[in-house]
């Protein structure tokens, strides 16, 4: 049975267990003189039985579904004759995809070596076995645990307390999933990053000014050795982010100031949601806009005044990214400006300052730490933004500060290195994870600093 169907079956079994548990508690209660002699309401006996039935079964199902693919792959590869056994992880993944193509019928069995065809049969057989075993195991665990739970129902049993503590633990594990996700991120990038540094020296990655990850595919191929210096990528990322911030900060900040200090309720009610719409537009749409409208416009404009601009200029990607970030800056600054106590405003205005003087000399300095925090958050978003730069910035890793030239960014390189088929062992693939690790660390630091600033500032007036 497929995992999805099995999931449904388990849910059905849990409902059945609920019915049995409910019925048994009532039957037990009747000779005692009604359900008021039970320790808990019949509902809780039923719920307890269904939790007993469902939780172990679901755990088994999840573990099985998660690991069966890997186990089957290892078994199939292990069964290959010695001369076909893969030497590296890259070969292994090639072989596996060949075998699974044969198994699924995409590649006729006559076209491959006999052992591969046998392995494909074996793969099918193992999958079938795994499905049957999984079904048998999950159903028997559900029935057995449900039966045990049902058997243990006694009038003295405090089912409510048990159900509630199980639920509490469930809630806790959902909250702890956040930690698990972080751990998962750290492990997945850290592990590959260490392997990357085993192949490419530390110094080359951090201080190299060349980035061309095209390594030779075959050992005898004549190709560039491949250079992994991340400086051009980081300068490219910084250039585009800087352009984005030059657009987003003045526009976002000024609109926040106007909306919070000058605009009437009606204007604010219309403009604010419109600005927030900019934040809700998917980044792929911005990428489309940048690549197909803004970039040609900029290169035409530059050509008409006699400057040469690349058709994938950093300026186009940066400007559109800036538009995307405007609502981010404006809503954060809006919050901070509104948090400045009214007494400061009143005091300044009472002394005869104009509204703009109050804003510039009193409110803005008071709100500055919070605004800086918001800007840092926006920077971290600009650095991690992917689709706009993938579509509108180029692939050439130029070390330049000219916004009209093509630059590439960290995220663009991660996507380019990891889309399509890849061998999992080459320095090229591992480099993507190393870049991911750098990106994660950079955004994490920015966020931590930004949140600290924002929090510290808030305490001043609360």
């Amino acid at each position, binding site marked *: 049975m497929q995992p999805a169907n099995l999931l449904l079956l388990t849910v059905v079994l849990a409902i059945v267990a609920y019915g049995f548990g409910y019925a048994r508690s009532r039957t037990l209660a009747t000779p005692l003189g009604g359900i008021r002699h039970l320790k808990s309401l019949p509902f809780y006996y039923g719920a307890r039985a269904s939790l007993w039935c469902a939780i172990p079964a679901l755990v088994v199902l999840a573990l099985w579904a*998660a*690991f069966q*693919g*890997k186990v*089957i792959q290892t078994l199939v590869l292990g069964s290959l004759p010695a001369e076909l056994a893969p030497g590296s992880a890259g070969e292994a993944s090639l072989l596996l995809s060949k075998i699974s193509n044969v198994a699924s019928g995409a590649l006729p069995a006559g076209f491959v070596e006999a052992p591969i065809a046998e392995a494909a049969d074996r793969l099918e057989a193992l999958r079938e076995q795994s499905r049957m075993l999984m079904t048998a195991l999950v159903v028997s665990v559900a029935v057995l645990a449900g039966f045990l739970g049902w058997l243990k129902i006694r009038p003295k049993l405090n089912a*409510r307390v048990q159900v509630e503590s199980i*639920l*509490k633990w469930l*809630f806790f594990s*959902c*909250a702890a999933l*956040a930690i698990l*996700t972080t751990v*998962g*991120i750290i492990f*997945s*990038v850290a592990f590959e990053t260490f392997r990357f540094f085993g192949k490419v020296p530390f110094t080359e990655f951090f201080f190299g000014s060349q980035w061309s990850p095209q390594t030779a595919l075959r050992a005898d191929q004549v190709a560039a050795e491949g250079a992994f210096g991340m400086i051009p990528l980081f300068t490219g990322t910084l250039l585009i982010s800087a352009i984005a911030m030059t657009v987003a900060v003045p526009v*976002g900040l*000024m609109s926040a*100031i*106007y909306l919070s200090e*000058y605009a009437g309720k009606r204007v604010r009610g219309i*403009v604010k949601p*419109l*600005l927030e719409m*900019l934040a*809700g*537009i*998917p*980044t*792929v*749409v*911005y*990428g*489309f*806009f940048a*690549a*197909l409208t803004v970039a040609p416009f900029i290169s035409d404009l530059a050509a008409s005044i006699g400057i040469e601009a690349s058709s994938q200029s950093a300026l186009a990607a940066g400007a559109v990214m800036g*538009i995307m970030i405007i609502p981010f800056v*404006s809503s954060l600054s809006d919050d901070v400006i509104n948090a400045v106590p009214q007494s400061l405003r009143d005091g300044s205005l009472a002394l005869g300052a*104009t509204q*703009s*003087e109050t804003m510039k000399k009193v409110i803005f300095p008071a709100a500055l730490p919070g605004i800086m925090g918001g800007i840092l958050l926006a920077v*971290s*978003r600009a*650095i*991690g*933004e992917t*689709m706009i730069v993938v*579509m509108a910035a180029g692939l050439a890793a130029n070390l330049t500060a000219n916004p009209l030239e093509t630059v590439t960014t960290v*995220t663009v390189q*991660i*996507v380019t290195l*990891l889309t399509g088929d890849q061998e*999992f062992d080459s320095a090229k693939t591992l480099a*993507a*994870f190393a870049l*991911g690790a750098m990106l*994660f660390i950079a955004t*994490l630091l920015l966020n931590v600093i930004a949140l600290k600033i924002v929090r510290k500032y808030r305490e001043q007036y609360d």
Partner: protein
Amino acid sequence: MTDQHSQAELVRQSLKARYRKERRFRAYGIIAIAIALAALVTLFADIIGKGYTGFQKTTVTLNVDLDGEIMYLDDATDKRQLKMADFVEPLVLALMKEIPDATEADRDAIKDLINPYASVTLREALEANPGWLGTTRTMTFLTHTDVDVYVKHAGDEGYSIKLNDQQKAWVDELESRGIVDTSFNDVFFSGGDSRDPSKAGILGAVVGSLLTMFVTLALSFPIGVAAAIYLEEFAPQNKFTDFIEVNINNLAAVPSIIFGLLGLAVFINLFGMPRSVPVVGGLVLTLMTLPTIIISSRAAIKSVPPSIREAAEGMGASKMQVVLHHVLPLAMPGMLTGSIIGMAQALGETAPLLLIGMVAFIVDVPNGFFDSATVLPVQVFLWAGSPELAFIERASAAIMVLLAFLISMNALAIWLRKRLERRW
């Protein structure tokens, strides 16, 4: 006295400049808002301007003579014969009849006006109605993409028309007689991706998006609500709880592409799950949207006044009963609103899905959680990268569909908030 007098005078003199500054400052604010709104308007105008033609298809209506001899077919129920038969010839002949000045030498030029898939349409029609063999039928077919581009964009700059002058004259003439015509592009909504822009549709991507969103919603809503309940109602004040909170806040700001790396390393390489399937996409998007849902659900729980809790506790309810019977129902509208906004975010997300292989060229509409699939934003990305302008038009049209989904989801969230949320 004179000193004060002169100071007041100074202030009075500076007033003009100060008021000017005030007006300038105000103008900066208005300009800033105008820039932002202009960007929004330009973006929408650009997408709509580029894409509205994507909702039209160009068709040609022909009187096709289904002559068995031309098609090398004498029994339309025989599957083998149907496979071997020539369905292009009757179309070419029918079109040549409509163009009186065409000679035998123009045959190839005329053939190039008809969509390569038109013969498939004809075969399918004949397969469904074997009795049509030997009759003449009036049927409508897609034109070739080059004709489609010419009919829609003859005057537009930036579109390269691949037809030659003679073909253009024919198309003009056929169009004036109504044989070549544009109509609502149902192909766009009923098909999967294709190498031929005229045949390419978004149904495959929409279904892929729906499947992925289903997985995301089914996992992230219950888990997010449960986590929020734990953190708001049950968590003890200790270092571990703080650690969880720090993690959630940081995850909310981690770039989405990092979640793609996580999905690739953990779900695909560690667990050996298949690539490009909605389940893995849904899992990755779940991890990505969870922080958003947890944060908004916590805000919703916080907004339920303590008096409700106290009243329930006073009636003897246990802590869990207070939460599940009283707090949760009252916080539900806020939680739903937050989740819909989180879902809208996930629906527009592209980057992490690129890394787990949902960028494959997939013609078939997926029909299960473990089928290879792509999603709407990725489809936009794929088409936008095509050098063919006919695909760019489809990409814009697909963006409009995507934006329509997102706007209606956000509208639903706003409506829910207005309708159900209670102010205490």
